[in-house]
Structure formats: C-alpha cells, structure tokens
C-alpha cells in the first residue's frame, strides 16, 4: 500500500508545474538552492566559533534564544507550510483503511523541507560541539530533543493550520516578547533557558520533548482521523459574502469599474492578502539599512536600494503578477468589451495609490533624518514614474496562472515562484542605484537623488507612450496567455 502512495507522490512531484519550466530557470533555481544550503551550513558551522569569538558560551547562548528560534519557525510554518489534506479526497472511497491514509499524510509532512532545513543548522552545530570536546552523549541527547521540538512545531502547525488569524497573534506575541526583551523590561528567555539548558545538562530532560512529540502525534492522528469527512476536516471553508457597491469609484468611469474589482480581489483572496502582507514587510525592510544594523548596507548607494523597496513593496509584489491576478477568468475578460488601456490604467492607479500611501506611512523614517526620508520619497517618484511601467511590461510576459485561493503560494510555492519576474526586477533596482552613483560621483548626493527623481518624472511624462507599447504586447501575447492560463488544472 505504501508503495502505491509513494508512486503517487513521485508522479505528483515529477509532474508538478515547476518541472515544466525551462532548463535555464531550473539551473538558476538549482544554484539558488545550493547557495542557500551553503549559507545555512556556514551558519551552522560558524555559529559556534562566532559566539566563541564574542566571548559567549555557544551552547548557553543558543539555548537562551532557542525559544525565539522555535516561535519564528512556527510563524514561518503557519505562513508557508502547506498541509496536505486536499489530495486525500480521492483516496477516501478507495479500499484503504483510514488510519493508513492519516499516517501517510502525516508522514508526508515529516519529510517536508521545513523540517529538513533545520538539519543544516543543528547537524553541523552538534558536530562542531563534539569536535570541541563537549560530552558526546549530552550533545546527542540535546540534538534529539531539538529535532523533537522542530517536529512538535510541525504537528502544531498542522493542528492550527486552518485558522487564519493565528498568524497575526503569533507575530504579535513574538514582537512583544522581543521588544520587551530588547529594551530590558522582561526577558522570556530567563524563564525558558533553564529548560533548554536541562536538555543539554541532564540525561533525562530530553524525554520531555520526546514524549511531547509522541503525544502530539497521537492527538494529531486522532484529530485527523475523526475529521476525515468531506464536511469536516476536508471541507473547504466558505466565507460569508457581502455585496459591496463601492459606488464612490463610479466617478472614475471604466477605471473605476476595474478598480472596484481589484479592491475586491485583494480583499477576498488569500493569495492577494498574503501579497499585501509581504509589501508591509518591505516597508520595514529599510530599517536594516538605516539603523546601521548591517554595516555593509550602510552607505548612500545601498540607501537608494532601500528607498525603492520601502515605497515599492506593493508595486513589486503585486505588479509583477499583472495580469496573472485575473488568470482564473481571463477568457471572460478577453470576450468582454474591455479597453486594454482602462484595464492597465486601473492596475497602474492601484500601484500608484499604494506607493503614495506607503510613502506617507514611511514618514516614520524621518526619525533617521531628512536625508533618509528624501531617499524614500525619491524612490517613490522613481517607482511611480518608471518601475510601474516596467512591472506592467514584465507582467505582459508572465504567464503563470495564479491560484487565488491558496494563500501560501505568495512566495515559496514552486508554482508561483517565477525567476523570470525576479530577473525583470533587477533593472528596476539597478538603474536608479547606478544613476545615483554617477550623480554622487560627479557632483554630490543631492544631485544623485535629483537625477533619480528626474528619471521618474520623465517616465511619468511618457506614460501614454509606455501604455500603448504594453498594450501592443498584451494583444500579441493574447492567445499564448489564454492557453497557458487554461493549463492550470
């Protein structure tokens, strides 16, 4: 029986959309995978020596912050790790005993990337510990305890999987705890560290996570088994719909019609909501650059980079998938009396409004001085004038259909991950950095900023020209786009 399941899994894997993409993209993804593996390995091996260098006891420090490591892991899982329930449906009516189905589905999650990635940290770290003369048995017990904790996270995520708002709660908890700790009001670590310490220092404490894991598996198993019905655990959630007229948008004519739709699209689909969440993260990305947190980032040229990102989060994450957002009903759009210009304009306006709103919110960067905020404003001008067009242009060639319902696909999901769009976004960032660098070299920093703003204004002036060019591409790509959007199923 298991062999049959494995056969199905293998087929699902080799026939997934990601295998269909062309060779160059595959090679690039391969390089990225190798790169990240090496980075993780380096961290795993390096962590010990770096902490030693900082005059900290490596194992004590790691244990101290382990609680954050686990919480962040849980958040990432809630955000990204998919729970394989839906593909169980066809198995239910076949002569297979339910426990087998459940064991297999749960077993599948054990092999998930989200569990294995931790091995890249824990394995080298443990080996380095042993290499440096730590008690072998202690290290092994500690290591097994950590593996159990990671798997506890795995099953907690499965149990919590279907609850949407939990993510915000967890992020809130971690942010609060982190904040309190950072400013020295309350350190959760002083309460949790002894537990993690015990995992290392005693020969019995490791049993706690082990037993916890076994218990949790038992609970998850029974939870799933008793919910293995189409109207229970396997049901798809139905939202209560509310008709919204958004009549105030009527004054914008055709653009208003599309804007209404786009607003509903963003509000009512998981995938787009995740995208908006991501663009909020971009808003804070600049903190890495402007707080001197990372030395390599702290130079004016890199600041330009940050300026583009801070104001352009939505533009980049949403815009690169125009018109894929409408892929599910692209045939309808193509048979209706739709002016491409109106369609494109509405997407453009959406991005412009989002960029302006983000720039206003980003005014908290004023804390770091006028120069920093000016960088962001200039970035916004460039985003509106140039990048908005580039993003729409790139989108014309993007033919990845988007499954609006799966929120976890916004990044990470193989299907949505599109290196091509990433490549298109490189000139979007490289050009302003280059222009600034030239400006700053020839005159001074303000001239550099002015040049970028000028580029943005020029781009804005050529809006109509750019639009008719994009429109032409949309028209020539029409049949290919329809065909590839249809391939989704």
């Amino acid at each position, binding site marked *: 029986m298991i062999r049959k399941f494995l056969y199905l899994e293998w087929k699902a894997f080799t026939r997934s959309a990601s295998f269909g993409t062309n060779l160059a993209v595959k090679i690039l993804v391969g390089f990225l995978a190798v790169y990240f593996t090496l980075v993780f390995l380096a961290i795993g091996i390096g962590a010990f020596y770096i902490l030693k260098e900082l005059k900290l006891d490596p194992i004590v420090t790691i244990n101290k912050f382990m609680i954050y490591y686990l919480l962040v892991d849980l958040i990432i899982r809630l955000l990204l790790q998919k729970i394989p329930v839906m593909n169980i449906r066809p198995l239910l009516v076949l002569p297979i005993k339910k426990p087998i189905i459940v064991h297999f589905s749960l077993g599948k999650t054990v092999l998930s990337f989200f569990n294995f990635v931790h091995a890249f940290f824990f394995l080298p770290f443990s080996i380095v510990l042993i290499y440096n003369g730590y008690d072998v048995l202690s290290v092994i017990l500690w290591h097994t305890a950590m593996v159990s904790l990671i798997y506890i996270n795995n099953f907690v995520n499965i149990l919590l999987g279907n609850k949407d708002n939990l993510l915000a709660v967890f992020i809130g908890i971690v942010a609060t705890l982190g904040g309190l700790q950072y400013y020295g009001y309350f350190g959760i670590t002083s309460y949790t560290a002894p537990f993690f310490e015990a995992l290392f220092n005693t020969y019995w404490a490791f049993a706690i996570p082990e037993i916890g894991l076994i218990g949790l598996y038992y609970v998850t198993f029974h939870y799933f088994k008793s919910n293995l019905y189409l109207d229970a655990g396997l049901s798809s959630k139905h939202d209560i719909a509310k008709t919204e007229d958004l009549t105030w948008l009527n004054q914008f004519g055709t653009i208003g019609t599309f804007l209404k*739709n786009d607003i509903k699209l963003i509000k009512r689909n998981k995938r787009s909501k995740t995208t908006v969440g991501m663009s909020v993260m971009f808003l804070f990305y600049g903190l890495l650059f402007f707080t001197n947190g990372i030395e390599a980032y702290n130079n004016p040229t890199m600041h330009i980079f940050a300026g583009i990102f801070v104001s352009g989060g939505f533009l980049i994450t949403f815009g690169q998938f125009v018109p894929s957002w409408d892929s599910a009903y692209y045939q309808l759009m193509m048979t209706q009396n739709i002016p491409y210009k109106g369609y494109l304009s509405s997407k453009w306006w959406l991005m412009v409004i989002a960029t302006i709103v983000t720039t206003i919110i980003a005014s908290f960067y004023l804390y770091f001085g006028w120069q920093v905020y000016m960088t962001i404003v200039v970035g916004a001008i460039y985003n509106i004038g140039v990048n908005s067009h580039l993003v729409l242009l790139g989108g014309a060639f993007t033919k990845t259909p988007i499954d609006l319902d799966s929120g976890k696909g916004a990044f990470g999901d193989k299907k949505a991950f599109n290196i091509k769009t990433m490549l298109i976004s490189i000139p979007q960032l490289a050009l302003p950095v280059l222009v600034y660098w030239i400006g700053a070299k020839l005159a001074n920093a303000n001239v550099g900023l002015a040049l970028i703003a000028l580029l943005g204004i020029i781009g804005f002036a050529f809006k109509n020209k750019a639009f008719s060019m994009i429109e032409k591409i949309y028209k020539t790509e029409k049949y290919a786009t329809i065909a590839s959007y249809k391939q989704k199923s």
Partner: protein
Amino acid sequence: MINVQNLSKTYNGTTVLKIDSLTIPKGQSFGLVGNNGAGKTTFFSLILDLIQPSTGHIINNDVQVNTSENWKPFTASFLDESFLIGYLTPEEYFYFIGDLRGQNKADVDALLTKHEEFFNGEILKNKKYLRDLSKGNQKKVGIIATLIGNPEVVILDEPFANLDPTTVIRLKKIIKELAENPDVTVLVSSHDLLHTVEVCDRIVALNKGEVVKDIQTSAETLQELETFFAV
C-alpha cells in the same frame, strides 16, 4: 450574421476542426451537436477569438474576429466557469458585466427581476461568493450574465449540462424567447439532442471536426439525429 470561410484548427498536425463554409443568418437559433472532441468548444472559442485559426476566418456581423475587436460590444458568451469571477458575489458580477456593457444598475436589476424565477432563490442575496456556489448555480449566473445589455449574438456552450430538470425547462423557455427575437442570433452547443432540437431552428452536427449534418429543425429531426449518432 456569422460567416465562416475555410476555417480550420490544427494542433501538432492533428486537425481538430475543419469547416469550409458555414453561414448563420441573423436571428437564427443555431444548435451545435456532437460527441466529445467533435470540436464544438473549439468552434465557439474561434468565434470568440480565444484561439487563433490555422486557416480561414470568421466574420461576425461584418467584423473579422481575429483582426478587429469590434465584435465584442454585441456578442455575449458563456463557455465555462472561467467566465466567472470567483471572488465576487453574483450581484457584483452582474453589475461588473453591466458596467462593461454600458448598463446601469437599474438596467441590470430589471433583468435580474425578470429572471428571478430562473434563479430559484438560490443565487441572489445568498451571502456566497461565486466560487462557493454549486456548479449548477454557477452556470445559472453565467447564462443570465450573457443577457445583460441586449447582445445581438449569444453563445452558450453546453448550457443544459449540470442543471436540474426544473431549471432545464426554464432555460429552454429563455432560449426560445431569445430565438423569437429576430435581432438575436443564438448559438447553443449540447450533447443532448432532445433539448437542442426543441430550442433551435437549425441543427449542425459535428464529427471529428467536420460538419456531417446541417438540418432545419422539423418533426423528423430528432429521429434523424438519433439514427445518425446510434452507431
């Protein structure tokens, strides 16, 4: 109204549709029957310029569909669920289509009231998004949406499939009403010979992409078609 010349569609050397000449006059209700893979949906997709013809062309009311988009204002169609916007409520969807077809809210409301019976109380004000409706109810929404803005050409692919008996009877009434209007050309495809014969003035049977029968509906048509398909 619709004029087909030397039309063919070939995928990797396999010809899936080949129609040398076909004219559908204005006001006709045109039924397309055939087995799976006969080319019905391919033909409709070609009329709607969703795919490119390998040879030949289609003219819809003096507009060649693969070179101009001017057929769009007077042509309405519903082929499958990919013509629905899943995250909208039925009302929002109707108003959206209405906006695109230059109809205001009141026009759309009037049409919806007229077809209240067809919806059977399961569509409007039901607090559900289109993606959460059953297949049959989705179809009802798609079909009624094609009537918004008084189109001159209405194209429905398999409208009878997935509908309950009551709705099928009501749908036949709606299509007959459309057919009676001399300004409206209706194109319907179906597997169901009986339904098609009932609502259409003319029936064309496709087999492996070619027109094998072209008959004006009469009392003997059903018999003739059944004999033809009983192989």
